């Protein structure tokens, strides 16, 4: 499936760049128009081309979800790596902090923080805050996995060998242990992306993602507040989300990894 899906999705992304128009352009002569040659997915109730908005939303959601996943993975690598390697009180402190943060209701935190933002916040700022929050809440579980791996590596023969060679501790962590965590870090990165996409979609459906007129997959779903009254073409973002999330779930970077 992966070999078919990857070029297909890439083609879709490339086509989105070729397809003209701005996501904010209103076609006042075609309000809530059904699909036609000019607007293959019709227009929304403000006369905006749904296909243009879907293409832009795809790029924006993938970019932000990727950046947030990168942030969460780096945070997890740093906290889990240092805690696992240092051990002692610092390790205990990080473990307790992770336990505490994991016991907080993350959806409530996301909703509360987004709801507290001023109504005149720019669409880009609100989206950045949303994904930054996901990043900050998303590193906890990966950090536990990375900590456990580092603790195991710390007792390994190759680390003992590096110590016996006189390698400084910081260099052992960066040059010897970190490269061995590559498959785990990649796995955490690729599994975080669909989680963040779906979280943003849920927030967007509730109207708590990017502000108008900025399109994201989540904000496009807001149109489906009453799905029974929605046009069939308005469900296109759900198809796009399902396609990309399914694709990300097929990525298994640990297969054929060097380490």
């Amino acid at each position, binding site marked *: 499936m992966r070999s078919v899906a990857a070029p297909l999705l890439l083609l879709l992304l490339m086509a989105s760049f070729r397809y003209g128009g701005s996501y904010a352009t209103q076609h006042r002569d075609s309000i809530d128009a059904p699909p036609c040659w000019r607007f293959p997915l019709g227009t929304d109730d403000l006369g905006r081309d749904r296909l243009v908005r879907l293409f832009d939303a795809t790029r924006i959601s993938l970019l932000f979800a990727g950046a947030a996943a990168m942030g969460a993975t780096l945070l997890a690598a740093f906290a889990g790596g240092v805690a696992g390697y240092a051990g002692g009180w610092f390790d205990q402190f990080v473990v307790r902090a992770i336990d505490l943060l994991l016991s907080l209701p993350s959806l409530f935190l996301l909703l509360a923080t987004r709801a507290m933002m001023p109504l005149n916040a720019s669409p880009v700022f609100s989206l950045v805050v949303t994904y930054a929050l996901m990043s900050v809440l998303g590193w906890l579980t990966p950090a536990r996995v990375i900590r456990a791996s580092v603790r195991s590596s710390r007792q*390994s*023969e*190759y680390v*003992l*060998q*590096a*110590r*016996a*060679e*006189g*390698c*400084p501790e910081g*260099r052992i962590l960066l*040059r*010897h242990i970190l*490269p*061995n965590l*590559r498959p785990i870090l990649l796995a955490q990165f690729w599994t975080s992306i669909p989680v963040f996409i779906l979280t943003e979609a849920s927030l967007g459906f509730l109207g708590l993602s990017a502000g108008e007129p900025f399109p994201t997959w989540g904000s496009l779903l807001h149109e489906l507040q009453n799905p029974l009254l929605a046009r069939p073409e308005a469900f296109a973002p759900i198809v796009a989300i399902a396609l990309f999330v399914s694709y990300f779930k097929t990525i298994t970077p640990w297969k054929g990894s*060097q*380490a």
Partner: protein
Amino acid sequence: MNCLLYARVSADYPNRPAVLDNLELAMGRGEIVGLVGESGSGKSTLAMTLLRLLESKGGQARGELLFQGRNLLELSGREMRAVRGREIGLVLQSPLSALNPAMRIGRQILESWRAHREGSPDVGQLLEMVNLPGEVSFLERYPRQLSVGQAQRVLIAMAIVHRPALLLADEPTSALDVVTQAEILSLFSSLNRQMGMAVLYISHDLLSVASFCHRIAILQHGRIVESGATEEIFVHPRHAYTQALLRAIPKPPSFPTDCHPDLTACPPCVAFPTANQAVTNGGHRAIESLVCASRT
């Protein structure tokens, strides 16, 4: 004897006190000493103690550890790090576990060098010393692409990259087949001759120890119970444990019990995997003769 190392140490683990019990060991410069003992007698603990790496395994050492005139147990962490690798090298038992699986061979050798010095070592010459090809394609390999014997040679190359005065070889041949074992022992001998490097060869295999060590120390329950020249240990073992070790040396089923001095010119074989080794080492009698002498 120009003393390189004098150790009088005790070592404990949290749940295992007195793993080393006031152990006393001395080594001269350029000397090859074989440390023999059964599993759990404290052989590897001694290697960790000499490098002061016992703490990383939760253990603790006390006593006196004089190496080139300095008490290693009194050095700061930074000073001790400067000793590791540069003055004392280590070769571990399982080369494929001791090499970093995510790092190419060339990079691993460079990392050993960079632990103490800037720039790059003469990798070609280094690999030549351990009988490995110095081609780029070899340096680009990962440990899993090497045979166990090649991996052990890489590990030895990394351990001698700074030409340490003392090399600790912690059962370096136990994971190898007999032919590769003989080759590695020959390599230790030649490195000892070329570089004047002292070797503490830790093993439970008395035969391989006898094949190239100048002196043997027998370790039991964390103490050296007997120590002396290789021939002396084989011909006149004093301690009951040493005698038991000698009696435990497996006897080839198809080989008569009398001595065969003429076999010393034979290449290594199943019956005498280290026979040729004893000849090339020079200055020692053939192993099978020593074994026979110990049994008469």
